């Protein structure tokens, strides 16, 4: 009886509609079109540090993501396609799918370097800037804590 229920449950689950998840190409292609991103963006992407100083980052406590309705099946012109693929190749990490603005694309790599295991829920909810500042503060806290405990000894 237990086995029968189990099979039925599994089959019902299989039949359930699964939400279509936006893949990285559709997301970045939508951003390229929406913000009119040009080739020069690639140069900015090349020059960004893996560990930026944070001087230019805003000190807002929690910054939420700007809502964005990207196309589920984005089609790009040849130039847009080449640019999209170059961005994807340059960043090459799983956080890129959650970027909602060019600013977040730029912060994608530094954030991944700080913490490559952030949950999709966090990445989908908070702005990468907030996450970056949070992760960096955590590291700094740990360092200072370790340093202070070492000093007490």
């Amino acid at each position, binding site marked *: 009886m237990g086995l029968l229920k189990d099979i039925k449950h599994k089959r019902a689950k299989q039949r359930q509609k699964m939400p279509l998840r936006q893949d990285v190409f559709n997301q970045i292609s939508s951003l390229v079109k929406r913000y009119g991103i040009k080739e020069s963006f690639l140069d900015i992407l090349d020059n960004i540090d893996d560990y930026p100083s944070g001087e230019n980052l805003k000190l807002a406590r929690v910054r939420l993501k700007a809502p964005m309705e990207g196309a589920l099946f984005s089609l790009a*012109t040849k130039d847009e*396609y080449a640019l999209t693929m170059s961005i994807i190749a340059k960043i090459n990490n799983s956080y890129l799918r959650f970027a909602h603005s060019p600013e977040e694309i730029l912060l994608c790599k530094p954030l991944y370097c700080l913490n490559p295991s952030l949950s999709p829920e966090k990445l989908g909810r908070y702005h990468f800037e907030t996450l970056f500042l949070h992760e960096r503060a955590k590291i700094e806290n740990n360092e200072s804590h370790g340093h202070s405990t070492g000093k007490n000894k």
Partner: protein
Amino acid sequence: MWQLLDSDLELVVESDFIYLPLLFDPEIEKETQVLLQTGKPLENSRQPEPKTIIKHKDRHFVKALSIQSLLDNYPAINSYSYRQLRNDCLRKYQLTRDVDDIFFDGPLRTILFQVMPYFIKKNRGLQRNKLNDEKILDLILEKVSIPARYFKEAKTFQDLGPLREIFKDLEDQQPIFKLPENGLYSGPELRDWLHNAVHAKVLANEHHRIAEALQIREQFSRAKPEHIAIMLYIADTGSIEIDDFGFTRNNSYKGEYFVYKRTRDYVLKDYYARSYLFPDCRVAVSTYTPFRPFVIEKYKHPFLLGHKAGQEICMRNFVPPNELTAQNVIRTIEEGLTAMRYGYDGRKRNGYHTLDKTWVHIPTIDFEDYRI
């Protein structure tokens, strides 16, 4: 599709197909590479079909629309645009049906050349000449201001050259349009070509009409352009009014008219000899049976049953004619006018209603507002 043709996109024409710029995603890129591999057979390669994807000046284009099919199905794809293009084309050569028919419109000729001269003031001073058709048209020209565009259209109407050329091409079975050559085109360029091709097709479909039109126009090629302009004006507006006499097209029946004469203001007297001033109205007769006089406007009168538009005038001894002749039209209008202006007898209180209140019947129509 129309947005594409109106945009500034560059499109390629090859083997009578319109190719659109290819849009990419990773899957499409893979498929494109496979399709463009040299020696790779295309789908359905048994037939020499045009390629699905082509490369032109380092840009990819995908096969989208068959030009021939687009042209054949244009009336179904965009019926509004087709109707507009067709009308433009027919108007260009003055080929709209009414224009040519109007020259042989029997009722209209009767009204213009036989009924109208009876009612309008045609002679100055003591001259009494019977007017021929040309002089009547001259008189209309004097009394009606015809807009300038009809004079221009009259010139086009009488210029038989372009129409003869089209007719000759159609008779010689010449191809009516040439498909665009292979190459790169802008959207508006292709749109213009398409419009020209639709024009050519419209003319080909109107072969018989062109033949008829040519025949008619050859007959009228020596007529004065001003006279042609009057006929074009009538074909367009369907009405003319001179000296309180006029006619207007009956929209319910094609080719039929209402011929009318205005009563002008007139006075009727009631039982006590009190005067009632009646406003102007148009007493008309239709060229479509029954040939009974009626009032076009919303109007009230002792001889009209209600207070509404299009009421027949109550006339006891009037026998309507059986056929449409100028004499019958004139007699019917005159009988109607006489009845309206002089038919009511205050002492007899004849008609549906009385001008004064009698208190015998419940009054339905009241004329107190006309009392002077």
